[in-house]
C-alpha cells in the first residue's frame, strides 16, 4: 500500500522476494503433503485422470502406428494391367516390351496366364476347384512400376494404359491406400474431438476435486484472510494441488498406455510372422511423453484455477 502511514513494520523488499519463492516452495510441499495425507481421495482422482487421458493417448499411439505403416506403402504405387482374354502370349509379351520402353515407366513385370493360374492354385487353397474348370479364367498380367512421380502423373499414365485396346482393366494398387488415408484422416479428426472432450473431462474432475478441497478448508481460508492473506497467497496451495493431480494423472495414463502396448506387442509379433511383414509397434517417444505430462499438468493447473476463481472469492469472513 503505497503512501500509507499504516505500515510501520514489514520485511525488507529483498526478504520479501526470497520469501515469495520460499512460500511457493512451501505451497508446493504443503499441497503434496495434503495429497499424501488423504491417499484414498488422491488415488481415486489421479486414477480417474489417468484412465481418462489414457484413451486419447492410446488412440494417438494407434494412429501413429497406422501412419508409420501406410508410409511404407506410399512409395509403391504399382499399376496392374489385366489384358483381354483373347490376346495370345506373344502379343502380350510384345506389349510388355512397349510399355517398359515408355518414359514414365520404370520397369514392368510380365505374368502369363499359366503363371497366374499356377500361383493361384498354390496360394489360394482352391487348387481342386481350379482343376475342374475347363479353361483358364485368368488373363495375362503386366505389373507396371512407374518412375517416382506425383499422383497426377501416375494417374495420367494409368489413363493412357487403360486406353490401350489390349488392356481390359488397368488398376492402380494405391487406390485402397488412398481410401485408407481418408479413413485415417477421419480417425485423426475423431481422436482430436475425443482428446478435446476428455481434456474437458479432466478439467472438470480436477476442478471438482479442488472445489471439495476448498470447501474442506473453508475455516482455514477464513482465518488466513482475517490475518491479512492476499488472494494470491490463499490460491497458491490449491493451484499446486491441481498441478500435482495433473502431473500424477499424466504419469498414470502413460503407464496405462505403455502396459496396453506391452499387451498388444506379443500377438502383433505373431501377426508379423503370419504376414511375413516387418511391422513394429511404435511406442511413445520421449517427446510424446513430455507433451503428455506437460499437457496433463497444465490441465491440472487450469482446472484448479477455474475452481479457485469460482469459489475462493465467495469465501469471505462474516
Amino acid at each position, binding site marked *: *500500500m503505497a503512501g*500509507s*502511514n*499504516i*505500515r*510501520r*513494520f*514489514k*520485511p525488507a523488499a529483498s*526478504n*520479501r522476494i*526470497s*520469501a*515469495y519463492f*520460499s*512460500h511457493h516452495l*512451501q505451497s508446493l510441499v504443503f499441497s503434496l503433503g495434503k495429497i499424501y495425507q488423504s491417499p484414498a481421495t488422491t488415488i481415486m482422482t489421479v486414477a480417474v485422470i489417468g484412465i481418462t487421458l489414457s484413451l486419447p493417448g492410446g488412440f494417438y499411439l494407434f494412429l501413429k502406428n497406422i501412419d508409420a505403416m501406410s508410409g511404407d506403402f506410399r512409395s509403391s504405387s504399382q499399376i496392374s494391367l489385366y489384358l483381354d482374354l483373347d490376346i495370345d502370349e506373344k502379343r502380350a509379351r510384345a506389349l510388355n516390351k512397349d510399355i517398359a520402353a515408355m518414359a514414365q515407366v520404370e520397369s514392368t513385370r510380365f505374368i502369363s496366364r499359366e503363371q497366374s493360374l499356377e500361383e493361384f492354385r498354390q496360394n489360394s487353397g482352391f487348387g481342386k476347384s481350379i482343376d475342374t474348370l475347363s479353361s483358364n479364367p485368368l488373363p495375362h498380367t503386366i505389373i507396371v512400376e512407374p518412375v517416382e512421380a506425383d499422383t497426377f502423373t501416375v494417374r495420367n499414365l494409368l489413363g493412357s494404359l487403360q486406353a490401350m485396346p489390349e488392356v481390359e482393366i488397368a488398376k492402380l494398387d494405391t487406390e485402397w491406400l488412398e481410401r485408407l488415408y481418408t479413413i485415417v484422416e477421419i480417425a485423426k479428426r475423431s481422436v482430436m474431438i475425443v482428446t478435446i472432450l476428455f481434456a474437458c473431462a479432466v478439467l472438470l474432475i480436477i476442478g471438482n476435486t479442488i472445489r471439495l478441497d476448498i470447501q474442506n478448508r473453508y*475455516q*482455514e481460508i*477464513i*482465518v*488466513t*484472510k*482475517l*490475518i*491479512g*492473506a*492476499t*488472494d494470491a*497467497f490463499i490460491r497458491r496451495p490449491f493451484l499446486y494441488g491441481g498441478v500435482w493431480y495433473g502431473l500424477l494423472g499424466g504419469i498414470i495414463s502413460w503407464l496405462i498406455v505403455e502396459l496396453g502396448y506391452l499387451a498388444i506387442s506379443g500377438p502383433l509379433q505373431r501377426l508379423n510372422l503370419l504376414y511375413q511383414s516387418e511391422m513394429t509397434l511404435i511406442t511413445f517417444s520421449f517427446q510424446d511423453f513430455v507433451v503428455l505430462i506437460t499437457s496433463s499438468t497444465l490441465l491440472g493447473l487450469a482446472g484448479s484455477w477455474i475452481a479457485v476463481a469460482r469459489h475462493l472469492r465467495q469465501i*469471505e*469472513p*462474516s
Partner: protein
Amino acid sequence: MIEFHNVTKRYEGGYEALTNVSLNLGDGDMAFLTGHSGAGKSTLLKIIALIEKPTRGQALLNRINLNTVSRHRIPYIRRNIGIIFQDHQLLFDRPVFDNVALPLQIQGFRPQEVAKRTRAALDKVGLLHKEKSMPITLSGGEQQRVGIARAVVHKPMLLLADEPTGNLDPVLSREIMQIFVEFNQVGVTVLVASHDLGLIEELDKPRLTLNRGQLVLNDLEGEQQEDERGW
C-alpha cells in the same frame, strides 16, 4: 487510531446493528467494548476489521477511510490488526508453531525471521514449550493464548479481541486480560469486546458501552455523550 463518525450499520432485511455511533480511540489507547449480546459489539469490531462496511457514516482506521477501501487493499490493512476470537480460530491440522507463524509467512518474512519472532511471541504467552504440540491437545486457556500469540506475532498496531475470555474460568480470564494490558503498555492500541464486567472494573480502563446499536457510554470522551441517552 479508530474514528467513527455517525456510523450506522443496517443489515439486509432491515436489522440495524449500529445506530449513529461516534467514537475516537487514540493511538496507544486501550478500551473495553461492553454491552449485552446483540448490542452491536461484534458489528463494530467487524467494521474495523473490514469484514463489514458501514451503511452510513464514516469509519477511519489510522486515517484510512474504511468505507471506500478497495478489495485488494484489504489484506494489507488487516496486517496492521491482530484479531483474537472467542473461539480461537486455530487451525487444527498443524502444530502450535505453524499456527502462530502464519501471519509472518503471509507477510513474507524469511524462515529464520519467522522462527525467531514466532518463538518470541510464544514465549510472551508462556507457551514456548508447546510449540510442537497440536492445538487439540491444549486446554482452552492455552488455545486462547496461542490465538493471542498469533494475533501479536507480527507486532500489529491495533489489537482487537472479541470476547476473548468468553469460555474461560475467572483465573484464566484475568491472566488473558493481563496480557492485553501488557501489550498496551508497550504501545499497542487495544480494543476488547467483553461482557465480563467484574474483570473490566478491576482493570480500570475506559469503557464503551453499546445498547441496541447505540453508544450509551463513552469513557473516552468524558460525559459528553450522556445527553444522547434519549431512549
